[in-house]
C-alpha cells in the first residue's frame, strides 16, 4: 500500500466542519494538509505549499470549484497538480468533463466513507 506519509494536500472546502474532519483523516495518514474555505485563499495556500494533491468541494461560498480549476489550469506550474473532487453534486457531474481540469478522482459526499478520501489519494499517487 502506498504511504501518504509526508505528502502535502490542500483541502478546499467551505463547510469548515466537514473540512476539519477531512483534515483529521488525512493527518491520521501522515499527510501535511491545510484547509482553504474559498478559491482565493486556496490559490494562496497552493502557491505557498506546492501541494502534491488538492481535494476540492465544488459548491463554495460565493463561487464554485470550477473557478479554482480554471485558475489552476491557467498556471503552468499548478496545472499538473492532481485534483480529487469531493462533492454532494457528483450525480450532476460527468468525469469526462472534469478530467481536462486535472481531476483524477471524484467522491460523492453523500455516500463516501471516511477512509475513501485516503484511498482516493493513494489512487492518484500510483
Amino acid at each position: 500500500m502506498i504511504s501518504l506519509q509526508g505528502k502535502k494536500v490542500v483541502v478546499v472546502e467551505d463547510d469548515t466542519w466537514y473540512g476539519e474532519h477531512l483534515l483529521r483523516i488525512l493527518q491520521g495518514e501522515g499527510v501535511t494538509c491545510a484547509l482553504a474555505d474559498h478559491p482565493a485563499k486556496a490559490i494562496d495556500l497552493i502557491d505557498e505549499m506546492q501541494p502534491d494533491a488538492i481535494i476540492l468541494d465544488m459548491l463554495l461560498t460565493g463561487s464554485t470549484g470550477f473557478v479554482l480549476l480554471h485558475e489552476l489550469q491557467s498556471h503552468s506550474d499548478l496545472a499538473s497538480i492532481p485534483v480529487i473532487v469531493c462533492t454532494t453534486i457528483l450525480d450532476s457531474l460527468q468525469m469526462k468533463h472534469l478530467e481536462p481540469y486535472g481531476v483524477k478522482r471524484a467522491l460523492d459526499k453523500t455516500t463516501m466513507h471516511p477512509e475513501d478520501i485516503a484511498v482516493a489519494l493513494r489512487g492518484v499517487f500510483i
Partner: protein
Amino acid sequence: MNGESKATYQEMSPSVILHGDSGLIAAAHELKAPLALIRQLAFLMEDETITIDQKKRMAMQTRLAAEKALRLTTDLTKVARLEDALFQLEPVNPAAICEDVAKELDEYFAAHGKKLTVQQSRSLPLVIAHHDLLRRILVTFSDNALQYGGEEVRLSIKKNSRSIRIAVRDYGPMLSPKDFTAIKRKLMTPQPVHARPQSSGLGLYIAGQFAHIMQGTIGMTRHRDGVSFYVDMNASTQLQLL
C-alpha cells in the same frame, strides 16, 4: 488546455436545470450538505481512538447541523402553507425579535468561531408583522451571513420614512458585481442548483415569500467590506394614534 473540451458547470448539469418543481429539487440539494456532514460525523464517532473531547465536539456539530436542516424543513412547510394558513399580522417589537435571533443562533455562531450581535437602537416604532415569520427571515439572513461573512455579523434596525429596515450585516470579502447580481436574483426565485455558489438561495427565496405575506420586501446592499441583507416592514402607527 483545450478550452473547447471543457464545459461549464452550467452546461454539464442539465439534470439539475429546473423547469418546474424547482423548489423541491433545490430543497433536496440544500439538505444534502448537513446530512452528508451528519453521516460523516457518525462514522467518525464510531472510531474508538477519538478522545472524549473530540466526541463531544462532534456530537455538538451533529446537533447543530441537524438543527440547521430542521430549520429549512420547517420553513419549507410554512411556505407550502402560506396561502392556506392565516398569519395574523400585529405590531411586534423588531428589537426584541433581533435579540431572540441572536440568542437562538448564539451557540451556532460560537461553534463557527463567530459572533452575532445586535446594534442597539432607541425609540423605534413597532412593525406590522407576524412574529415567527419575521424571526425566520432574520434567522435565514443570519445563517447566510455566517457562510459569507467575517467574524462578526450584526443585526440592526433603522427607520425610513414609512418603513422599518431590519438588516443583517456581514463583514466578509466584497462581493463581485457578478456575484452580487446572482445573489439578488436568488432573492426573487429559487435558483437551479447549477447557478448556486454554495447554496441554492432557497433560504433567501423563502425569506422573500415570508416578507411578501407580511407586505414587506427583502433586498441586499453591497458594501466595501461585506453585504447587508434586509427586510423592510411597515411601521406600526399604533403609538401615533394614542
